[in-house]
């Protein structure tokens, strides 16, 4: 809220200085956001698939002697828009967007590798009567593809300045700003091309005819073999069978990388937090503050931060895949499946975003024009594996396969696949029961293949790490403190253990200290809560302490890891001498001395967290985007029932086959 008001304040200040703003306009995926980031020095998300920019974003920029606000518009194919994202941009260009003036100038970004389609939009932008400067982007890729563009001739056709740029490298950006400043100072409005000027009305056919004429006169082919490699790669990557196999192979490869690269830093972080906890325990005088820090804060925050290397590696890999142009191909492959289950093709972009977080994904579903299609997409999006689930998956994987990256990667792939299958199945069900209509197929532009930028990927991993650490230092820290308090109070009478009783406990493999700690924990608020819900969760193979973790993680999924870290730390005095999270969980025992985290319990726990709706902010954003609490409540209800049923079937099914 505060940032929003700062933004509008800054926008109004910029307007006061300059008169009005400059707007970046282009087709989707023409490199507009990359250019915006280069000009402003900001770091908005960019990707090599269309639909990344959804709302207007802005940053101050020095053009000539004036500081102006530069706006990054969502991508447009035409100025006759149908989707929400396109309307945002058109309203802003026409000066109808609330709090924005009409632009002083437009920087029209054209993709040099795809001029015909880009010129269709150009023909409409030139009609607006606003000074236009064309940024001819991706000149390097055009040259690699064997084409050269005659810039002077293009300028003559468009009637406005054209500046070649390579946004990714920042070349040509200074000249672009200089030319833009001159265009604003002179008030240079473009002349509508003669072919269009004399026509009334200007039809789509005429615009395309004009675009083809322009391209024919400005494009010079330097290599005849253009596009052969792309076509060959596409033939394989878009193949119904080969494409799908490649998709799963890529997914598996990414997860294997995650486990093999992240295992060492994970062990180091886990060890560091264990040592810190022991050091604090030895330095502070015994008492509630020592217990809060050593048993609550450090295991709680450390338990989640252990998984930071895996999350960074995943987002590094996703960024690399985006940059290469592979993800758009994956969209086409997956679209065939989406359509069969009744999801609109455009649902792929939100579904992809949902692998980071369901909140931006639900917002990204605005790209879907049809309200019914959008509703189905919103309802199933939280089933996709978001980054908050990763610590839970990683924890279960470490419990089941501590020393096998290959098996770990297979389990991760299976977890992602289960989320996807559940999402598609629910979409299929909703399409045939709740919302009956025919989905709109996907129309997506396949971007050219590019060498990925390691810098962009490192920045993506860095941004994700920052957010993860911030969450660990705020929400998870606060929950850890509250949870520790709930597990430590009220204090019960210290149980006395006679020598005979201690001997009988020892026969069951339970130490007297551990038994006393368990009694105290059972007496606490969390213990009472856990015992109350235990009959509901016992059929899933969970003990009451896992139940406390599930309740604590209703606000956010990853909290369950820190909750279990605290619960089994507080409850297992000494935890057989180990301070490491996974060791503590492996050593955890039930009242009868049997281990808590058996194979069946781990699988059931994983299945529950793949499917459960343990995220309050997602429910809030569902309410916002659907306009009704009933859909948020429905989403929570169906996902909870689905998670419980599937976890029950997994646990009981494994037991039937003799696997405990």
């Amino acid at each position: 809220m505060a940032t929003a008001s700062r933004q509008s304040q800054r926008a109004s200040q910029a307007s006061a200085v300059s008169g009005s703003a400059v707007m970046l306009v282009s087709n989707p995926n023409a490199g507009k956001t990359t250019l915006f980031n280069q000009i402003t020095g900001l770091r908005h998300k960019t990707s090599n698939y269309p639909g990344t920019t959804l709302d207007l974003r802005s940053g101050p920029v020095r053009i000539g002697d004036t500081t102006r606000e530069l706006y990054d518009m969502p991508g447009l194919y035409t100025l006759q828009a149908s989707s929400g994202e396109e309307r945002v941009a058109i309203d802003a260009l026409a000066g109808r967007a609330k709090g924005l003036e009409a632009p002083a100038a437009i920087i029209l970004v054209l993709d040099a590798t795809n001029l015909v389609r880009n010129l269709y939009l150009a023909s409409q932008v030139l009609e607006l009567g606003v000074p236009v400067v064309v940024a001819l982007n991706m000149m390097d890729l055009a040259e690699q593809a064997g084409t050269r563009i005659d810039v002077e001739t293009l300028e003559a056709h468009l009637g406005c300045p054209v500046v070649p740029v390579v946004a990714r490298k920042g070349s040509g950006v200074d000249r672009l700003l200089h030319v833009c400043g001159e265009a604003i100072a002179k008030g240079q409005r473009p002349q509508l091309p003669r072919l269009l000027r004399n026509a009334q009305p200007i039809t789509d056919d005429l615009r395309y005819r004009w675009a083809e004429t322009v391209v024919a006169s400005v494009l010079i082919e330097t290599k005849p073999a253009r596009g052969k490699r792309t076509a060959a790669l596409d033939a394989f990557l878009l193949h119904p069978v080969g494409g799908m196999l490649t998709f799963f192979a890529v997914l598996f490869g990414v997860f294997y990388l995650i486990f093999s690269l992240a295992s060492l830093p994970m062990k180091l972080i886990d060890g560091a937090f264990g040592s810190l906890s022991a050091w604090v325990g030895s330095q502070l005088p015994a008492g509630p503050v020592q217990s809060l820090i050593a048993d609550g804060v450090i295991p709680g925050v450390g338990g989640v931060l252990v998984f930071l290397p895996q999350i960074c590696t995943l987002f590094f890999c996703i960024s690399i895949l985006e940059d290469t142009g592979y993800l758009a191909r994956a969209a086409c492959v997956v679209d065939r499946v989406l359509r069969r289950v009744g999801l609109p093709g455009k649902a792929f972009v939100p579904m992809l975003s949902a692998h980071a977080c369901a909140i931006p994904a639900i917002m990204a579903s605005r790209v879907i024009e049809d309200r019914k299609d959008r509703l189905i997409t919103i309802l199933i999006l939280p089933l996709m594996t978001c980054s908050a689930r990763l610590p839970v998956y990683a924890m279960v994987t470490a419990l089941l396969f501590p020393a096998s990256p290959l098996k770990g990667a297979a389990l991760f792939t299976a977890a992602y696949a289960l989320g996807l299958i559940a999402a598609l199945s629910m979409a299929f069900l909703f399409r045939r029961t709740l919302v009956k209509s025919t989905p709109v197929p996907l129309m997506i532009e396949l971007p050219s293949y590019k060498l990925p930028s390691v810098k962009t990927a490192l920045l993506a991993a860095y941004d994700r790490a920052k957010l993860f650490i911030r969450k660990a230092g705020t929400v998870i820290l606060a929950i850890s403190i509250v949870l520790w308090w709930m597990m430590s109070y009220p204090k019960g009478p210290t149980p006395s253990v006679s020598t005979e009783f201690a001997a009988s406990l020892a026969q069951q493999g339970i130490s007297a200290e551990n038994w006393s700690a368990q009694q105290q924990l059972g007496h606490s608020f969390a213990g009472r809560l856990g015992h109350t819900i235990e009959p509901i969760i016992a059929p899933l193979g969970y003990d009451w302490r896992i139940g406390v973790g599930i309740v604590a993680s209703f606000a956010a999924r990853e909290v369950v890891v820190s909750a279990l870290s605290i619960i089994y730390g507080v409850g297992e005095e000494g935890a057989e001498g180990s301070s490491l999270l996974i060791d503590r969980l492996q050593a955890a025992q039930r009242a009868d001395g049997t281990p808590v985290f058996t194979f069946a319990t781990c699988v059931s726990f994983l299945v529950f967290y793949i499917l459960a709706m343990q995220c309050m902010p997602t429910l809030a954003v569902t309410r916002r985007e659907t306009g009704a609490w009933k859909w948020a409540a429905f989403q929570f209800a169906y996902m909870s029932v689905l998670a419980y049923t599937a976890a029950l079937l997994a646990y009981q099914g494994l037991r039937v086959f003799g696997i405990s």
Partner: protein
Amino acid sequence: MSIQQIIVNLAVVAAAVFLARGIYRSLSAARRNKTPTCAGCNTCEAAKKEPTPTKP
């Protein structure tokens, strides 16, 4: 009550207030059709450092 106990009580109250405020903000933002932020993730486009001046 010992000083240690007072420190612990203050920390617990502060943490509980912080969480309650987060829940309230999230729910009230949804009710007023604003973008709810989850006090941590911030992945959403609108919650990034340059927020949106307009909504579609």
